[in-house]
């Protein structure tokens, strides 16, 4: 008999006024009882609308049925047929727009907590004693993966299982890409990311850190001199954008990338870190996406009074619903319909404040989207000694500039077809390097598609 409760099982979390002072994980995960109870809310629909909402098409009702039976190992097997990083996706996917957004239970009440169940299954699996790993038999073909973020890891995972000799090249000193340098510890513990990477290494994937493709070695050299038959480019979202307003280069102004990299990759939040960070007394974060929420919540944890300014309204915030909710609970102020026009300075070149203009939403245009328009003369200043710009990224030109015959869009993204094939034979691409800033799961999906296409390409050569 299905559990007909209209509400999801709540997931235990650290209390807001406790967690906003530490970097430990906010959400604590379901217990076995909670997971089974939640799994019983699934009606096991025949047409599986949830699965159509999943970028990697996990057979969601099948894994949930296993959870309901208490067969967690079986549930893990179902998930990993389609996903290489369940512990990560269960935590960072925007489920409300994907699987859960399509769940029938969501029509009257809350959808089944698919994300929380996925996370539960992955965490349960990771807590079990490790089974000895069987390395796949080699098929003798070498492939290279550029970037060790979600798309690269997913691509590597699928190719190693098919017997390829897989090497991942990573520019930074730690693998994981945005999972390591971007998403904070309290949302995605780094131990989980490293565990996923160790799992791939155990299967035989080689990871060469400290290698900037385009500088240390080029794509052409990898293919012509080092014997890689096919290359996947998953180099990520690239360079942070700024608003081009006065004062953006003052001391105390960070890109969200820099702020988060200092904290997540370089552990600047720890007392004894060699890398400094200054969140100041009052920090203003510009932007409304997941990255803005991450930066805001980090600044809060470093002791700053934090305000997020966003030029549209709460309804249009692009961040995951849970992140916005958590940020609000943690005491972060939101100023909507607000657009910075200038950052003011102290005498010694530090940030003093942010001059903002009040906005209003226009009538929806032809596309149905209301545009924020400035209200004449409606300016005000927010005092701040730290400003974090979180308004998106533009692609890194390095690989394009050093790879002959690789075509890119006008805005810089690599051009790739449905399967990830670029304009260059044997070279595939996926993730943010192709789409511009998107989500972990979309990048993973692209990595998997490319892996299948690379396999076909090499086998038919």
């Amino acid at each position, binding site marked *: 008999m299905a559990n007909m409760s209209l509400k999801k099982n709540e997931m235990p979390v650290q209390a807001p006024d406790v967690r906003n002072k530490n970097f430990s994980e906010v959400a604590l995960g379901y217990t076995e009882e909670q997971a089974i109870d939640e799994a019983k809310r699934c009606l096991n629909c025949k047409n599986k609308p949830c699965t159509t909402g999943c970028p990697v098409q996990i057979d969601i009702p099948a894994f949930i049925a296993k959870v309901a039976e208490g067969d967690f190992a079986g549930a893990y097997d179902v998930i990993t047929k389609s996903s290489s990083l369940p512990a990560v996706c269960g935590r960072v996917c925007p489920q409300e727009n994907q699987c859960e957004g399509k769940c029938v239970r969501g029509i009257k009440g809350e959808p089944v907590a698919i994300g929380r169940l996925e996370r539960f299954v992955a965490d349960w699996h990771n807590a079990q004693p490790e089974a000895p790993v069987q390395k796949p038999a080699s098929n003798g073909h070498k492939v290279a993966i550029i970037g060790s973020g979600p798309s690269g890891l997913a691509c590597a995972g699928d190719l190693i299982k098919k017997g390829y000799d897989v090497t991942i090249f990573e*520019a*930074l*000193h730690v693998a994981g890409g945005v999972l390591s*340098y971007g998403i904070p510890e309290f949302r995605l513990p780094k131990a989980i990311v490293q565990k996923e990477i160790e799992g791939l290494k155990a299967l035989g994937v080689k990871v060469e*850190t*400290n*290698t*900037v493709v385009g*500088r*240390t*070695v080029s794509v052409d050299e990898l293919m012509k001199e080092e014997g890689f038959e096919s290359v996947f480019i998953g180099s*990520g979202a*690239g*360079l*942070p954008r*700024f608003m*081009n307003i006065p004062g*953006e*280069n*003052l*001391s*105390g102004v*960070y*890109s969200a*990338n*820099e702020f988060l*990299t*200092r904290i997540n*990759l*370089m*552990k600047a939040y720890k007392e*004894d*870190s*060699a*890398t*400094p960070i*200054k969140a100041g007394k009052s920090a203003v974060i510009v932007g409304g996406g997941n990255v803005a929420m991450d930066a805001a919540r980090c600044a809060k944890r470093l002791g700053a009074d934090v305000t997020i300014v966003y030029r549209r309204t709460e309804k249009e915030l692009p961040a995951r619903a849970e992140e916005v909710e958590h940020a609000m609970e943690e005491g972060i102020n939101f100023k909507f319909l607000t657009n910075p026009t200038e950052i003011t300075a102290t005498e*010694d*070149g530090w940030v003093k404040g942010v001059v903002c203009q009040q906005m209003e939403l226009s009538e929806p245009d032809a596309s149905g989207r209301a545009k924020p328009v400035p209200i004449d003369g409606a300016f005000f200043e927010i005092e701040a000694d730290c400003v974090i710009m979180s308004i998106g990224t533009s692609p*890194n*030109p*390095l690989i394009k500039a050093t790879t002959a015959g690789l075509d890119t869009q006008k805005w810089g993204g690599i051009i790739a077809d449905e399967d990830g094939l670029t304009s260059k034979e044997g070279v595939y691409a996926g993730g943010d390097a192709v789409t511009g800033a998107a989500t972990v799961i979309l990048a993973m999906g692209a990595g998997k598609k490319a892996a299948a296409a690379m396999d076909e390409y090499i086998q038919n050569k």
Partner: protein
Amino acid sequence: MFEILEKKSLNPTVTLMKIYAPRVAKKAEPGQFIILRTDSEGERIPLTVADYDREKGTITIIFQIVGGTTEKLNHMNEGDCLQDFVGPLGRPTETEGLKKVAVVGGGVGCAIAYPVAKKLHELGVEVHSIVGFRNKDLVILEDEFRAASSKFVLMSDDGTAGEKGLVTDALKKLIESGEKYDRVITIGPLIMMKFVCRLTKEYEIPTVASMNPIMIDGTGMCGGCRLTVGGETKFACVDGPEFDGHLIDFDEAMARGAMYKPFERRAHEEACNLFKEVK
């Protein structure tokens, strides 16, 4: 791991090291830089490539002890390994079409100016090197510069080495005496480069300055190294590190460079008791 094959003290605060990093050595060109970490808890610091040996697979770095990390690095010895060493990063110095160049270096910046002078010299460019130090104890690479230059001028603040005065005095004298440079390349403290650029602007000599701002990833991802050049924001790591010196906003660069001074001072003091104030 990246082994330290050779270590040499050039003066009391400046050290040279040769690091085994074959992938980097295969590609490095003058003007480019590397990023290193001494240990698994260390910060990432950028250092310009001072020399390279493609056959032996080594990169030479020359650094001044200014903060916690350079202090730690200076305590490492031949046979020790650096945790991380990545590069070459940034764009190489542009040398095409040059016939006569003045290379103006100051302090430890001379370590970066030298490979540029050497490369130009090898390409058959007429090189005049003007280098400045505070005093004779701090002079580095004098013989190397002499070998790579058809004219060499040594300046010191106190007159204990070469002539007394600033590098800008020497440069001005050469220009006034009729030397015609098609480019000036300057590498050193920001304040020195600012005044070199101001001088060459008066004489309308194209000038390139090599910037060494605070950096983290070095691949364009963080934007910490940004500076204003001709009113536009540029990233030193991917657009530079060399820029048109007449367009750089040096005052802004100096303010940004001082952002973590108090932190560095503390790290430096913690690294060595000798730097602590006597209570």
